[in-house]
């Protein structure tokens, strides 16, 4: 690390400005055939602004966020167990009482955020813990949704049975994909999972007798509790909150067990982990199965809430959206992943005008995040301990 003052001096020199101008103009030139003169100049200007923001703002930001996560970690360690339990209870109470003060639209957004938090927690098992880049995650989501929809809409199976059935079938798909891809290394695995979602999408679109093709499945009955049919947004809020708490609990406990540590070992070095006696085969398949299970549950919830599903809801870009939540929040970090899901669902709603640029910004954020802060907004505690003790 260079001392900050020297950095500051360097940023001000004439050569630095020349380089900045050159880079900005280069990007403008690249964009020229697509945007025309005006757009090209606008792009140059925004690149310049971006560079300045990074050069002057980034050291401060990283220092701050690094301190922040170290503090939270320390506070986590120092706080007496009773206080921590109290804080958790307070958090849970806020989550349960909050929707009473909100309107239906806001509750729906929070419900979606909850759904994606479940999905992101599931994907985090595969990508964050075990380090297997799974791009076909939305495929399991689709399997869960279609299973639940077909069972409830055609065979009048109660939702509460169809939901775990969707999760189980998705888990079975996860097992199949996990077994098939066992021998593959990271990048090959990514491509095969990409092929998986593509194949699944083709099947959903063309297997009319089961999936009803591109028209999708309509009139999926709402879940019922006794004689009460869940119809209000707030009912679904509480349902997803319950699912979320179960997911969170299971994932957290798992992470703290031998299995969680074994996954991390595989992520860091599969050969070494195998040499230390870990059954890497079983552990990798298990990560796939468990991740797929939560995706299936999320899919079932989606089908029950909206009453309509079609293949368009389960594309590769759904996978990418969930993956960006995991990456932005922090690979392997449970609070980070939840924060990522909340941020990526709620922020676009707040910034309605930017909604066209959503995917563009996600793509850019994925690149920048990997370069500048690969551990995510809230890095995982385990990695934090490792890096802080190494210094």
């Amino acid at each position, binding site marked *: 690390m260079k001392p900050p003052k020297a950095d500051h001096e360097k940023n001000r020199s004439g050569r630095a400005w020349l380089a900045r101008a050159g880079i900005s103009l*280069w*990007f403008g*030139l*690249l*964009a020229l*055939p*697509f*945007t025309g003169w005006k*757009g090209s100049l606008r792009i140059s200007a925004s690149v310049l602004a971006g560079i300045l923001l990074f050069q002057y703002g980034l050291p401060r930001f990283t220092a701050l966020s690094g301190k922040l996560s170290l503090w939270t970690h320390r506070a986590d360690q120092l706080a007496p167990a009773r206080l921590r339990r109290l804080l958790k209870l307070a958090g849970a109470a806020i989550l349960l009482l909050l929707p009473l003060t909100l309107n239906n639209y806001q509750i729906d957004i929070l419900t979606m955020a909850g759904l994606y938090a479940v999905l992101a927690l599931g994907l985090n098992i595969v*990508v964050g813990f075990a*380090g297997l*880049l799974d*791009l076909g995650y939305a495929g399991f989501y689709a399997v869960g949704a279609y299973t639940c929809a077909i069972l409830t809409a055609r065979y009048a199976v109660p939702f509460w049975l169809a939901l775990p059935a969707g999760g189980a079938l998705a888990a079975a798909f996860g097992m199949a994909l996990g077994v*098939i*891809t066992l*021998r*593959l*290394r*990271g*990048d*090959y695995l*990514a*491509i*095969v999972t*990409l*092929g*998986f979602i*593509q*194949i699944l999408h*083709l099947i959903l679109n*063309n297997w009319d007798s089961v999936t009803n093709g591109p028209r999708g499945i309509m009139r999926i009955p709402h879940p019922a509790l006794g004689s009460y049919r869940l119809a209000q947004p707030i009912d679904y809020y509480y349902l997803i909150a319950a699912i979320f708490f179960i997911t969170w609990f299971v994932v957290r406990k798992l992470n703290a067990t031998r299995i969680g540590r074994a996954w991390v070992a595989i992520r860091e070095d599969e*050969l070494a982990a195998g040499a230390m006696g870990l059954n890497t085969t079983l552990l990798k398949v298990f990560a796939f199965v468990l991740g797929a299970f939560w995706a299936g549950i999320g899919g079932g919830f989606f089908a029950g809430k909206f009453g309509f599903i079609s293949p368009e809801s389960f594309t*590769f*870009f759904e996978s*990418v959206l969930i*993956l960006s939540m995991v*990456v932005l929040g922090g*690979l392997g970090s449970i609070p980070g992943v939840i924060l990522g899901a909340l941020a990526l669902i709620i922020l676009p709603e707040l910034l309605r005008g930017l909604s*066209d*640029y959503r*995917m*563009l910004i*996600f*793509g*850019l*954020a*994925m*690149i920048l995040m*990997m*370069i500048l802060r*690969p551990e995510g907004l809230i890095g995982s505690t385990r990695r934090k301990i490792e890096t802080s003790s190494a210094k």
Partner: protein
Amino acid sequence: MLIQQVINGLILGAVYALIALGYTMVYGILELINFAHGEIYMIGAYLSIIFLGFFTTAGLTQDHLAISLFLSFLLSAAFCGAYGYTMEKVAYRPLRKANRLSPLISALGMSIFLQNYVMLTQGSTDIVFPHLLPPLEFTGGGVTVTGIQLFILASSFILMGGLYFILQKSLIGKAMRATAQDRIMSGLLGVNVDLIISLTFILGSVLAAAAGTMVAIYYGTVNFSIGYVAGIKAFTAAVLGGIGSIPGAMAGGLILGLVESLGAGYISSQYKDLFAFLILILVLLFKPSGLLGSSTREKV
């Protein structure tokens, strides 16, 4: 019917092969799947249409059709080379020493970024290649071959031959092969590794631009989403031939094109895309080193 399908398959295969070369060259040197390579091909297709449109408004296409076609290809190739160069510099170079997940995610981000960037600037509807080429058809024995098809076949084989020549005979090609074999050692022996990697990206992007231009001419319409599927298929072709192997990528592309065209003609056109993915999964399961690749043992 059979011969017709074979010809269609060869055209498709030639395009896949050109894109697959970019994947395989980058993988050979960096062991990175450049997810965004398919987008470079899409950008190449767009740029050739944009430049040709520019030449049309400038009034060049009426008298000098061949020249303006060639010029728009050259410009498109130059821009794609610049895109490839910039992409490597921005998204991959800072991550060269990172763990293996980071560059993959960065590549994915780049792919999404480029796709949306083109969609936002050019719209999400198809853009159409101007009808400028004279319809030229050769018919014989129930088989029809258009001039465009012959042109595509010929030029892609010329390009592949050119690439092979560069890699095998020129000093740069030698440096590229050396870097692919052992990056650190070639660096020690005086190869400018960064430059070679940049050149690899540029070369791959130029080939993708050529593929894009051909597809734009052949199908007549281009959409911002074509890069994604073509990218996966070309990657399949590269894996089929043995990733890292240049002749493998060429052979893999041609085989994939043939399988797809015959499968669509004789089995089911609905599931046309399925064949590519099935091949991909089967190859990875049973012969991950591909048809012409050498099997590598994982280094500890």
